[in-house]
């Protein structure tokens, strides 16, 4: 894993923390520099021809000066899941052609936030009371949730934290199989281990340095054995010649290894991207064809497959999943009522809205307690 990291920068304000020393110990073969200013790291990353790649090799241990809890950036027109993001770090050393993080930060840098006391404090603020709304909180929005496992104790801190309360679930979403640390943790079903899933063809061509499909599903099966609730994200679904039998096979294989009863939810989302990502993919992944589908500008300004094409693929995938797992909650990530109605036969509103549908699933699988505040 550490082969990917060529240099570590440490914010001078966190050098004294024992956690910092622990990480540096685990990565002791990697050259390390203490810096006073993030700009030094930025400049270093920007110096090369390909800052997007460079940022994946440079690890910056620092403190998060902003909020640790953020709302998932949904849009008005498409149905949003109402998720909260737990901001443990940024970016990723894996390299997916479609990764939105390539355009998110300027430049993107692998940052890990060491002030976890503040992180827990932010969580306390919303979870300390036994009364209040249900929260679904995930770490896999600005980074992959499990890439940090080999170097840090992050899961050992947050999984038991969530285990000790009743109002929130933590979703760890990954394309890695770094699940070892999860084995002996007290999770109390409050941590959902989720895997992003795609066809072997897409994993091979578009998801550099990620774990294979078989390994991901194998890791999911292992987590299930350890009692964790699971989730899967078929996102981004990508249209290519022969994609349908491939996705069907993925679904078949998935349900051969894990049982539907332990799946909290499965999300579906076809590939969508902000227009500037196109250039980046052209430059960094010249062999990738994924941006040459029939994309049209969506109402959130992201490029999306022409709607009938999305609906077509969704219908099939939903049908194949329903055949084996009729009761698992399936939902779309950022789709409108039209798509919901055509594919699922109902719109989220009829079931109380998407956030409520997901809350119900979390309550059921993770034994949360709904309280009236």
């Amino acid at each position, binding site marked *: 894993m550490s082969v990917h990291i060529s240099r570590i920068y440490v914010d001078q304000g966190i050098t004294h923390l024992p956690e910092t020393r622990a990480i540096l110990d685990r990565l002791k073969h990697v050259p390390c520099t203490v810096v006073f200013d993030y700009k030094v790291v930025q400049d270093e990353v920007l110096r090369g021809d390909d800052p997007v790649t460079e940022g994946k090799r440079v690890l910056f241990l620092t403190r998060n000066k902003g909020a640790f809890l953020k709302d998932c950036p949904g849009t008005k*027109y498409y149905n949003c899941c109402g998720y909260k993001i737990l901001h443990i770090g940024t970016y990723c050393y894996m390299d997916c052609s479609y990764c939105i993080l390539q355009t998110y930060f300027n430049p993107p840098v692998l940052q890990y936030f060491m002030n976890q006391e503040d992180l827990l404090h932010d969580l306390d603020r919303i979870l300390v009371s036994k009364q209040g709304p249900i929260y679904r909180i995930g770490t896999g929005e600005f980074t992959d949730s499990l890439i940090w496992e080999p170097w840090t104790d992050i899961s050992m801190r947050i999984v038991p934290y969530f285990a000790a309360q009743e109002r929130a679930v933590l979703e760890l979403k990954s394309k890695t199989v770094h699940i070892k640390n999860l084995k002996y943790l007290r999770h109390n079903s409050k941590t959902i281990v989720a895997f992003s899933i795609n066809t072997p063809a897409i994993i091979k061509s578009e998801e550099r340095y990620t774990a294979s499909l078989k390994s991901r599903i194998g890791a999911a099966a292992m987590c299930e054995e350890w009692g964790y609730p699971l989730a899967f994200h078929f996102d981004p679904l990508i249209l290519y010649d022969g994609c349908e039998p491939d996705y069907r096979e993925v679904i078949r294989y998935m349900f051969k290894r894990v049982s539907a009863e332990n799946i909290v939810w499965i999300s579906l989302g076809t590939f969508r991207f902000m227009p500037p990502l196109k250039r980046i993919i052209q430059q960094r992944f010249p062999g990738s*064809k994924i941006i*040459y589908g*029939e994309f*049209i*500008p*969506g*109402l959130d300004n992201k490029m*999306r497959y*022409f*709607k*009938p*094409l999305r609906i077509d693929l969704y219908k099939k995938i939903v049908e194949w999943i329903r055949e084996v797992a009729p009761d698992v909650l399936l939902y779309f990530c950022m789709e*409108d*009522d*039209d798509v919901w109605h055509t594919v699922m036969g109902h719109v989220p509103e009829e079931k109380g809205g998407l956030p409520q549908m997901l809350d119900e699933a979390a309550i059921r699988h993770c034994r949360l307690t709904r309280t009236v505040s």
Partner: protein
Amino acid sequence: MNFESRTVSINEIDTQDSRYQLSLHIDTHTIIESIKAVGLINPPVIVKRDDDHYSIVCGFRRVMACKALGWDEIPVCIPPRRPTDLDCLKLAILDNRSHRPLNLIEQSRAIKKLSPFFPPQERFSKITFLLGLPENEKVFKKIESLCQLSESAKLGILENTLSLEAGVELVELEPEEQDCFAFLFRTLKFSQNKQKELITFVKEIAIRESVGIKEVINSEEIRGIIDRSDINRNQKAKEIRAYLRRRRFPSLTKAEAKFFEDLKSLRLGPHIRLVPPPYFEGTTYNITITFKDITELEQCKSEFDAMCQNPVLKRILS
């Protein structure tokens, strides 16, 4: 610089040596007529090489014209001390710029020739100043890249049938692929935006379908459109664009065609316009009603009512 004026044998001048030549082609036609009429008013500048032959610094056309006229000797200007290559290039640029602005290809060639003489951090500012270019690094890079174009694509730039932006899009292609585009744009004049759009369509179709760019441009359909005698150049350009768009976006264009077919069967008059959501992504349709007076409005109303009863509208909106 005080130049020495003298006459040299024309054979001592190496006309193949293009190290200071900025123009793509040396067209001697007009200058021959002028020299015939009034003689050589402005002698070319040349420098002596180590092999005792001369390189032309300024005045390629003049030397070639005199050669074509059969002159054995030619009056020239020679700098007193042997100038550096950079000085010669500067001289060539100044000489050219004193008659007229450099065209894009000359600018591009000049950037290429000057670049080795400046450290990377000074290259942009120094060359921009010498060539009188706007201080815009993006534009600078675009112009610079034109050097990599094929001869016919460069010609397209000079003839204005290929825009700078489109030229930049072609740079990464094989020379024969560039030639295909240059030919297409010379045959059918496309606006700057349409050129870029067309290049993108063709490139993306080639990638989507795993075929060559030449194969797309030389497809039967495009050749058929170019060969049609019943439509003019603009119509051909439109047809080609529509064909490429259909091939690039088959499902979307099919849906558009279906919508317009349905729209026709609604038989709306000129005062009612039904507009679908852009790309059929949203679900909101727009209706515009235009009228001058109450009579026209009433007429529109009955048309509107009829439209609402028409089952085709239901189909459109389903």
